[in-house]
């Protein structure tokens, strides 16, 4: 298998594709990395309210150079801004929003997603790795919808969409939908189901690069 980054959507296009699926007025938590790109592509006329688990609803973009406050950061520890209508709160309240089902959508990266909705995205399980979990387990357990945005395969060409995760789990049966450079794929009770193919990508091509049965809608 070749590096799948060469065909299919670019990262920005993946983010744009995901962004159009988010209803106006949603409360959204975006993970670090590709998920953060989603905020750039929200269609005109829609307002999303971004939650960052370190204590802010109404997060805005990065500040102008020199205008930031080291005490106004996002979960990735980058400086951000607060928009009109924002609110600050403490960590227990922030995770009450998450665990209590108040956040509409969370977008995360993944190491592996299984066809039963299991997610692995925090640890390779290698003995030498420093374990670090952050808020991912709380997010997947509590947020109403959890989407993954990721390259379809690893850099070495292994499928990330699998029959069963081999890495330690972040959560069990928690993923609703996966956006890759090749396709938009729902996790259904019957397993992975293609919702949409990237223009020019054949179903068969995606199926070959998916480590679990893949159905068409």
């Amino acid at each position: 298998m070749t590096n799948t980054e060469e065909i299919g959507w670019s990262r920005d296009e993946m983010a744009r594709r995901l962004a159009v699926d988010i209803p106006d007025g949603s409360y959204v938590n975006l993970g670090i990395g590709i998920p953060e790109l989603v905020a750039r592509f929200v269609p005109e006329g829609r307002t999303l309210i971004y939650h960052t688990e370190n204590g802010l609803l109404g997060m805005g973009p990065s500040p102008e150079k020199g205008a930031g406050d080291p005490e106004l950061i996002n979960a990735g520890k980058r400086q951000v801004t607060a928009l009109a209508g924002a609110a600050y709160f403490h960590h227990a309240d922030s995770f009450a929003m998450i665990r209590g089902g108040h956040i509409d959508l969370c977008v995360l990266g993944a190491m592996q997603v299984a066809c039963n909705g299991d997610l692995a995205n925090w640890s390779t399980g290698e003995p030498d790795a420093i374990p670090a979990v952050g808020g991912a387990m709380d997010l997947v357990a509590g947020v109403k919808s959890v989407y993954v945005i990721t390259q379809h395969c690893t850099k070495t060409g292994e499928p990330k969409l699998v029959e069963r995760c081999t890495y330690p789990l972040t959560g069990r049966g928690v993923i609703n939908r996966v956006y890759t450079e090749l396709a938009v794929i729902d996790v259904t009770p019957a397993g992975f189901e293609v919702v949409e193919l990237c223009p020019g990508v054949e179903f068969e091509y995606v199926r070959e690069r998916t480590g679990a049965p893949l159905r068409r809608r």
Partner: protein
Amino acid sequence: MIDKRVKGPGEAVADIPDGATVMIGGFGEAGSPVELIHALIDRGARDLTVISNNTGSGEVGLAALLKADRLAKVVCSFPRTANSTVFPDLYRRGKIELELVPQGTLAERIRAGGAGIPAFYTPAAVGTPLAEGKESRVFDGKEYLLERWLRADFALIKGQCADTHGNVVYNKTARNFGPIMAMAAKVSIVQVRSVVSPGEIDPEVVVTPGIFVDRVVEVPNPAHESELVAAGASYP
């Protein structure tokens, strides 16, 4: 464009159906959303379960809702007041079910509902009649009771000021159950003295972030229950 305003109390409660579970804020008259409760009486929904610290005064507000025979059950810490016979009458006639809950347990169960905590342990009520039928467990040599979360279909809350995103601040001890009930209900409805634009409430002082609020209704001059009772008012 997010704008959670609705036109008035009537519109705010128009979809509360028979059999709904409704949290109603307030401790005594402070924080009691009188106009929303009166709109709920007008709405006519029956067989409601109401979760509220008290059962109202006189024949207005919560007491009027009781008197109109709309409640099947109340979950409550203190259903007695010096100046209302509505609840006692219904209770003695066996017309209403009461789940009596210690006030702190009531608050924590509501907060748990909002925070996605299905159950927790508390020391309150151990060894008392209110522990009957509850699981108990010893942690570090001390006994605690297992308590379940409380959640509701709707919450009726009184705030001081909200913005159109639903961020709310309260007035003094009228805050009481408002913030936690807003968290624990599927649809949280807040009446406030004034609605402002996003940005007009400092993000540092927001008490209830808008994520917990679904509908905001402006009631510029809300009635004070004690004044209505003193004037001998009744509703409807």
